[in-house]
């Protein structure tokens, strides 16, 4: 791949950019920690899909039962 190749230029933009980051390193570290906390800790342990767990593939029936029974 030559240096004039578009894909090389894109690669080099990101490679060089990430390599020369200063403040960016801290920010990326924060982003990665945050994404880990959100998607691994929170999603996995605290925010299960309620319907998937309780309706077991019969979501429409489950919600219908809930909404019909909650009528005053």
């Amino acid at each position, binding site marked *: 791949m030559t240096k004039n190749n578009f894909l090389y230029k894109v690669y080099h933009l990101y490679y060089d950019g990430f390599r020369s980051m200063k403040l960016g390193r801290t*920010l990326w570290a*924060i982003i990665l920690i945050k994404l880990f906390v*959100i998607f691994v800790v*929170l999603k996995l342990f605290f925010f299960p899909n309620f319907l998937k767990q309780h309706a077991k593939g019969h979501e429409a029936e489950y919600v219908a039962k809930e*909404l019909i029974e909650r009528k005053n």
Partner: protein
Amino acid sequence: MLQNLILNIDAGTIDWSRAQFALTAIYHWLFVPLTLGLAVIMGIVETKYYLTKDEFWKTAAKFWQRLFGINFAMGVATGIILEFEFGTNWSNYSWFVGDIFGAPLAIEGIVAFFMESTFVAVMFFGWKKVSAGFHLASTWLTGLGATISAWWILVANAWMQYPVGCAFNPDTMRNEMVSFTDVALSPFAISKFCHTVTSAWIIGAIFCVGVCCWYLLKKQHTRLAVESMKIGAAVGLVASLLAGGTGHKSGMDVAEVQPMKLAAMEALYDGGTEVGLKLVEGIEVPYGLSIMATNDPKGYVPGINDILNGYTTNDGKVEPSVEEKMARGRQAIEALAAYRKAKAMGADEATLNAQLTILNANMQYFGYGYIQDKNDVVPPVAINFWAFRVMVGVGCLFILFFAVILAVSYRWPKFLFGKRDITALPAWHYWVAILLIPLGYIGSECGWLVAEFGRQPWTIQDMLPTWASVSDIQASNVAFTFFLFLILFTTMLVVEISILLKQIKKGPQS
């Protein structure tokens, strides 16, 4: 209101779920408006560099982009938690609206990922690698990408306030999109987008002016402070005036589709024609509310009691009482139950169609079937009344503030400001500008309080109240994650503010 809760759903579950959603949305909204607002500031600063080729502007652009980058990094993915909450705490609601939210949120995700990951990278890494024109375009497109993201999120929010372009399918128990255009270009969504984005520009502007005043107070980076302040004040003035105009349009939309919200915002119990706008209790602008709601000084504005008991508008439109709506809501739910039972038993088409006809005829009041006491449809009046006044008050103050900053910066008109030097004002002048930054956020958050408290008890206007939307889960679980979020978000906020302050102290770096 919640004492009317029925069956086995603990009132605490609703309260904690609402509190958690509010907490997440409020924190999320601390990051978003600064991203949208600073995008405009840094775009204009870089445009100045592109036009003048003066290295000063390049340094200034890099400085504002650095602050933008910090806020952007801290705000990334904070909104995704709201979607987690939909799936766990609001599962009935989530299923009920699924197809409508799917498209806007998917588009938002794709646009945000591709536009922002591409153009943010060019903006930060590309100064020496792409042409000045391409770099400038990337900077503006970064802001545009964030703004387009906001569009789709606000389309989803607007649909909850004004559900259009959908049809309820009693077989799937979901609202299905019948017109993407009606959902995406709903007049309510357009007003909401314009008002929200212009208010976000105000936050960017007040942040910019506040930072500049800090430098003037410290007598550092004076040229950057003076030149950026002119841009910040100009953006702020234009944005404040636009926010006023778009706010008026939003007010008219609310009057049309959520009259109870407007009545609560005004603490208006008995409406009528030629209604004044209360500044505070006891002081009002004659005809103000009629003009705000209808553009006509003689326009009819219903009060809370009118809406509860039913009313007729000036043009003869009859709005049923809440009790009538409750009866029709119950009919809709009963027809839904009968339809599903008949279908399960293999009933003929005629039987099914008879139930469907009843359901469709009353579907617009479906949510009223869950209301036990008509007063349950009245949102919290005091919060709406004062939040609206804080929002409007802050907006009006900012019009004056930005106009004065501009006048002093340009020393115009000469007879008033000719002898004022923006770089040599008494210290308290700068402190006022710095302290207006949190006030801007308070005004902005109050706007959301009005939007969201005003539509209580509805998660979807007239179709689903909170107590039918919430999942059958333990209140203690939601309370635990509420405090978990409180710690997490507060930590993030402290980290962001400390990094921002550190970078502001460092100042621009050539």
